[in-house]
């Protein structure tokens, strides 16, 4: 992403370089060093802080990211934001949206409403520019004593031994070294740590070029996601329009495989295209970039003491909001385990569980986003015929609307789990799934699930086990449909990342202590 009009909205001095202690004296060995102060790196630092783990965060930049980049934050991401202290700010500033409309040529073929399922604290999605998320997270990280945030600190080399990583860092005032037990690479799609390790992505790269732009425009467009297949205003290619705060609109335009990026990025060319989308010339281009898609990942995310999370580990096309949201879910799966290792509760082999879960999740995200990309940019021949016929079918056959794929929006995957289960309980809360939220009095269930394991009694008293918080929850309609199903009582064991570990409805709760210790063991 380059050729940028800087957004210029960030707090003065927040990202300023401050000479690190390592320039004048050797620093003590660190538990965790995070490379990259984007949303994933900062979220990891704050989540580790929730688990009383100190970290140093290094970033070569001295400013927030340019352009709005990630804009759609999912319900699950907002729940994670709540845990690291920026949930309210994000929702307050963001544009909550629930309606998506899909058009073929200039006619709406269907729309969806993501808020059909109520009784959750957070909405299905908000739109918020990545630079706001980075600003909010940076402010939290700056005031958090567990996080040592260092901008304009560039990693130029790493040396590894079986138990630590030594990092060579350059700053404007000189170089220094840090030794750490764990290095967490959150340095994005062009990860320098990945290159230093000589690791390569595996998977598909798509040829099709897309123009992505953010414009500032006073307009009465509703807060909806609008997607067009073959609109008349854009030469039969696809187009996406999405509203962000501050009268900013995101527009994605398919340019075709033969497009010349240099020409397409020219302001007059961009302006001409956008005028046709929005029907006015009264807008200001804030950011523009021309890109191609990749749907790829590293073979593994754990390499000795170097861990990868977010775009450094996997990349997807943007039409499903699975990049940033997927990265935050990496943080979710990683940090409590890393904390357990740092605190000596578990051995380093527990990282294999992170690797297994998030590779599984990355494959789900990659599969979804690859399918969307194929649907949006079909190859000539059979792919094209199938796509076009499906769109035609969708205008008069209602079932076919669900087959139209303009993006399958991010939801957390359900991990494979060997945890105890009961067939009479609802599928949505089975072991491996994130605990569904539900109203609780004037509050929410999700807020009662902290960073400690929890034992929830539903219609019964939960058993007390050492090291877990046990509490009884209020049974209401939402709880009944999400947690009880055909049963009248149940006990749920929930992991520190709010994923359900095991559940019981009969023989309450046989083997719960073993299930509890299994959370920290790699089978």
């Amino acid at each position, binding site marked *: 992403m380059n050729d940028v009009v800087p957004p210029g909205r960030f707090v003065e001095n927040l990202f300023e370089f401050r000479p690190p202690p390592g320039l004048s004296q050797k620093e003590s060995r660190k538990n965790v060093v995070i490379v990259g102060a984007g949303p994933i790196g900062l979220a990891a630092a704050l989540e580790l802080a929730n688990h009383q783990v100190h970290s140093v965060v290094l970033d070569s930049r001295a400013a927030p990211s340019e352009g709005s980049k990630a804009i759609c934050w999912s319900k699950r991401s907002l729940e994670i934001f709540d845990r690291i202290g920026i949930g309210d700010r994000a929702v307050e500033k963001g544009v909550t949206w629930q309606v998506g409309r899909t058009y073929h040529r200039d006619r709406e073929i269907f729309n969806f409403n993501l808020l059909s399922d109520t009784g959750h604290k957070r909405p299905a999605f908000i739109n918020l520019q990545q630079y706001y998320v980075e600003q909010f997270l940076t402010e939290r990280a700056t005031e958090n004593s567990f996080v040592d945030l260092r901008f304009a600190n560039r990693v130029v080399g790493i040396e590894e031994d079986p138990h630590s990583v030594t990092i060579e860092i350059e700053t404007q005032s000189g170089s220094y070294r840090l030794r750490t037990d764990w290095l967490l690479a959150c340095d994005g799609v062009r990860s320098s740590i990945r290159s230093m390790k000589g690791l390569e992505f595996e998977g598909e790269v798509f040829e099709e070029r897309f123009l992505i732009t953010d414009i500032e425009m006073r307009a009465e467009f509703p807060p909806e996601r609008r997607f067009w297949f073959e609109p008349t205003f854009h030469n039969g290619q696809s187009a996406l329009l999405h509203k962000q705060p501050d009268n900013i609109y995101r527009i994605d335009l398919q340019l075709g495989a033969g497009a010349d990026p240099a020409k397409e990025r020219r302001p007059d060319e961009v302006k001409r295209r956008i005028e046709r989308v929005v029907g006015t010339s009264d807008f200001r281009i804030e950011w523009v970039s021309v890109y191609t898609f990749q749907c790829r990942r590293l073979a593994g995310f754990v390499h000795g003491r170097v861990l990868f999370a977010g775009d450094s580990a996997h990349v997807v096309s943007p039409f499903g909001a699975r990049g940033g949201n997927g990265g935050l879910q990496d943080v979710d799966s990683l940090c409590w385990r890393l904390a357990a290792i740092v605190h000596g509760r578990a051995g380093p082999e527990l990282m294999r569980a992170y690797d297994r879960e998030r590779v599984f999740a990355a494959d789900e995200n990659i599969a979804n986003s690859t399918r969307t990309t194929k649907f949006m940019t079909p190859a000539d021949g*059979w792919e094209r015929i199938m796509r076009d016929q499906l769109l035609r079918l969708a205008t008069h056959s209602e079932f076919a609307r669900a087959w139209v794929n303009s993006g399958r929006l991010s939801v957390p995957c359900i991990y494979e789990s060997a945890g105890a289960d009961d067939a009479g309980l609802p599928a949505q809360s089975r072991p491996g799934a994130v605990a569904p939220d539900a109203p609780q009095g004037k509050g929410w269930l999700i807020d009662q699930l902290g960073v400690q394991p929890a034992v929830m009694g539903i219609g019964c008293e939960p058993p007390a086990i050492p090291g877990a918080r046990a509490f009884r929850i209020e049974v209401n309609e939402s709880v009944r449909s999400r947690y009880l199903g055909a049963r009248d009582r149940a006990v749920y064991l929930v992991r520190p990342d709010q994923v359900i570990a095991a559940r019981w409805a009969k023989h309450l709760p046989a083997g719960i202590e073993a299930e509890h210790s299994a959370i920290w063991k790699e089978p």
Partner: protein
Amino acid sequence: MTERSKPTESFGAHDAIYDELLSAYYGLSTDRQRQLTASLLICLCHRIGSREEISRALAEARASLPDDTVR
């Protein structure tokens, strides 16, 4: 699978379906035939509903391709 073990009872129905499939394609250009096939596949898959059944049907169909076109 049960239909296959008792084929004689539904000869008439098969023949009529086969005839209907042919009739639907008469008079269409090759392009339009392919378009119709695409739409028909999607409609049939929707009506069958089961991913497993569809995969099985696809495998059976693929096995019927002449040898020199199987990759």
